[in-house]
């Protein structure tokens, strides 16, 4: 039974891969470029130089953390679509603390700033969790709306109280070198934040798979009613998972500020908070799989960027393909090409009926 399932999964994967590759080839060809050359540059972009390879991890870091956040929330049945907003809440919290704490705090300045970001993001997600738990208001709607609020509030902040006094562009003052996350490998952008992300993956994996807390969250996500009937507090679990989820997404924002931008400005998330939803879905909300999918996604983007730079093929093609992959994965039940057996299954019924 299981071997059969694995075989089926492999077949599905192969079909999805082939279909995606075919569509990609078609799109590149339609741009007037040679698909072969494009693919060569695509892979060269990923593995060609050491620094481009390191770039994959740089790009993956925010995706890993926001994806992890979504996975934790989805596992608990809390559909947090607000990773984007929580990312910004975190970026803002981190920036404020890092700018106002004096140099004398040393490395603690970074730790406190990241912690502040975590709490800000957590609280931002908590708003939706409380509205959900107390008034049964859809968390999907609330988190999306909260995204708009915080994104525009950030725009307001960098034009007013957080604006760099020395300049007149809408961005914060530059963060002192001592408060940045260090580059670990010279001549690349491989920074310490990547290690933080990896630690988070391991920690969340441990919490979700090996602890009573993770078990409770999973149970609540599977069946709230059964959880309540067996004495697990649904309210506590949802609140905890929302806070954790928001905090993780916020850390991505903090790292982006402290390692990449070195200041706060608009649009720094590059929509990773929305991509995170896809990543968590594809990864089946499993922490280790989130890591793998985020790396894969980042690699695709790095490759596509190199393709665009050198051949003029729009990197948007990758987004089209990723959208296609998601639709195929989520919709494979409906597509006879992927599952010709649907009709037969429907007629078959269940053995114990």
């Amino acid at each position, binding site marked *: *039974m*299981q071997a059969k399932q694995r075989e089926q999964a492999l077949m599905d994967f192969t079909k999805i891969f082939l279909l995606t590759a075919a569509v990609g080839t078609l799109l590149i060809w339609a741009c007037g470029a040679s698909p072969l050359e494009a693919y060569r540059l695509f892979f060269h972009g990923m593995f060609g130089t050491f620094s481009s390879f390191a770039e994959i991890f740089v790009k993956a870091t925010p995706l890993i953390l926001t994806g992890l956040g979504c996975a934790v929330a989805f596992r608990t049945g809390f559909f947090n679509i607000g990773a984007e907003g929580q990312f910004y809440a975190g970026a803002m919290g981190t920036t404020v603390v890092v700018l106002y704490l004096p140099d004398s705090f040393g490395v603690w300045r970074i730790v406190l700033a990241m912690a502040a970001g975590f709490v800000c993001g957590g609280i931002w997600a908590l708003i939706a969790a409380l509205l959900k738990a107390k008034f049964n208001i859809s968390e999907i709607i609330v988190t999306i709306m909260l995204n708009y609020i915080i994104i525009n509030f950030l725009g307001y902040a960098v034009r007013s109280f957080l604006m760099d006094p020395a300049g007149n562009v809408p961005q914060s003052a530059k963060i002192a070198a001592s408060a940045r996350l260090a580059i670990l490998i010279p001549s690349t952008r491989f920074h310490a934040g990547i290690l933080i992300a990896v630690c988070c993956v391991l920690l969340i994996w441990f919490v979700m798979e*090996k*602890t*009573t*807390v993770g*078990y409770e969250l*999973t*149970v609540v996500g*599977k*069946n709230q*009613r*059964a959880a*309540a*009937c*067996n*004495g*697990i*507090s649904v309210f506590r679990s949802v609140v905890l998972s929302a806070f954790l989820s928001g905090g993780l997404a916020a850390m991505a924002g903090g790292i982006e500020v402290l390692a990449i931008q070195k200041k706060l400005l608009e649009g720094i998330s590059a929509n990773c908070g929305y991509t995170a939803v896809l990543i968590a879905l594809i990864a089946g909300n499993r922490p280790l799989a989130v890591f793998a999918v985020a790396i894969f996604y980042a690699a695709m983007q790095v490759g596509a960027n190199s393709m665009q730079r050198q051949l003029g093929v729009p990197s948007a093609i990758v987004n089209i393909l990723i959208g296609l992959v998601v639709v195929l994965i989520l919709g494979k039940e409906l597509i006879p090409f992927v599952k010709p057996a649907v009709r037969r299954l429907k*007629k*078959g*019924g*269940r*053995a*114990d*009926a």
Partner: protein
Amino acid sequence: MAILEMKDICKAFSGVNANENVCLNVEKGSIHALLGENGAGKTTLVNILYGIYTADSGEIRWKGRPVRFDSPREAIQSGIGMVQQHFSLVRRMTVLDNIILSLKSNGFVLNRKAAAARVASLAQKYGLTVNPITRIADLSVGERQRVEILKALYRDVELLILDEPTGVLTPQETAQFFDVLRTLKGEGYAIIIITHRMSEIMAVSDRVTILRDGRNVADLTTTQTNPEELSRYMIGRELKQGDTPAATAHSGDRLTLNGVTLAARHRHGALCDISLCVCRGEILGIAGVEGNGQKELAEVITGLRRQNVGQITLDGRDIGRLSVRGRYEAGIAYISDDRQNDGLLMGMSVCDNLLLREFRRLPFSRAGVLDRRAAVRSAENKMNTYQIRASGKTGVQTSVGLLSGGNQQKLVIARELTENAVLIIACQPTRGLDIGATEFVRSLLVRERNAGKSVMLISADLDEIMALSDRIAVLFAGKVAGVLSRKEATVQRVGLLMGGITEKERA
């Protein structure tokens, strides 16, 4: 000549034979009972007839012509109707609209007046009284069943299939229902009735076909048989009569409810001034037609819902303000009537499900870190002790959704019956189980009782209540209609209380 002949019907689901060369002949103007344990293949057989499944092989002849239905719609058009165990009515629509729903003959503009007239004449003729303009949601279960039958009759069926029709009815409603069936029979309708209650078969049917493990085992004329013979055919052995020994002397109250009231959230199912006690070493049966507050009673005791007024004590300790978890830790175990929603996580493994109550304790976790190996070891033990059968290869890692109903229920019971549990709230614990599993579950409840624990057995199955309980309380409309000792409780008296007729009113 038979109006319906089913010959050598075979149907397998992923390699498991649900029907193997099953034959069934039904005469016009007769009531034909289909008897068998759960999983014997009764429902599969009628689902094939009704076009829900397609047979792998075999022949169906309807009025002498070979037929094959690909959907219920085709079956209905040919004159075969079915009332399923779970009704398929639209709750928010009226009786009339439900009856004429999806009829081709409606045309584009509905003629409700003509339809209402026809429904009224049908209802009159067969004693199926029901007001056509009430909404389904406002009807009792018995009335809904009448609507289902009217719906079939309105479509001019000649054969009516009834899947476990009496499970939800009071004894009085059942008697009325049988009168309707007899009238229909007199009018020349053929009726197939699926049931597992011997008394009903003896009372109403003309012929009985018995299935076991997907095969025909007997085809009998009802007047020439008796319940003992039927049960022997059905399970291959004689059925043990209610031989549970009476409880030894009870020693004091364990659970007491004092004036417990639960305000109605909707119109149904509130509790009104409930005062009850369950003693140590006692099974208290809670009888009543479903929807009279049984579920609410269980939920108030287990802490899922908070009473508005009243006191609940367990061994003298006030537990009224404790959480579900607190009450479990105080010793209340809960076997819910809705195991798939309340009791189990269908997508998770046997092992994870067994862990659901005890995961915070040693040896299953230490300082918040789970010990999966201890959980697996304990789960393997419980699977052995409670005879939970899962696929051999995956064992305790089998997904609960793949287990049969009986094994799912055993799993819930294995989890709930810990040493710590002193009071077991068992809500419909044998619903949907076959006879083997039912006996096993009942013997476990008796075992717990004999070990000095207390059981509150909430069941719509009166036979079960009568067979196991030391005392019987009857719920009606959220109130205790009466409490009877085992000796006082006759089916007649309990049945009247279930129908809301208290002793006083009769006098």
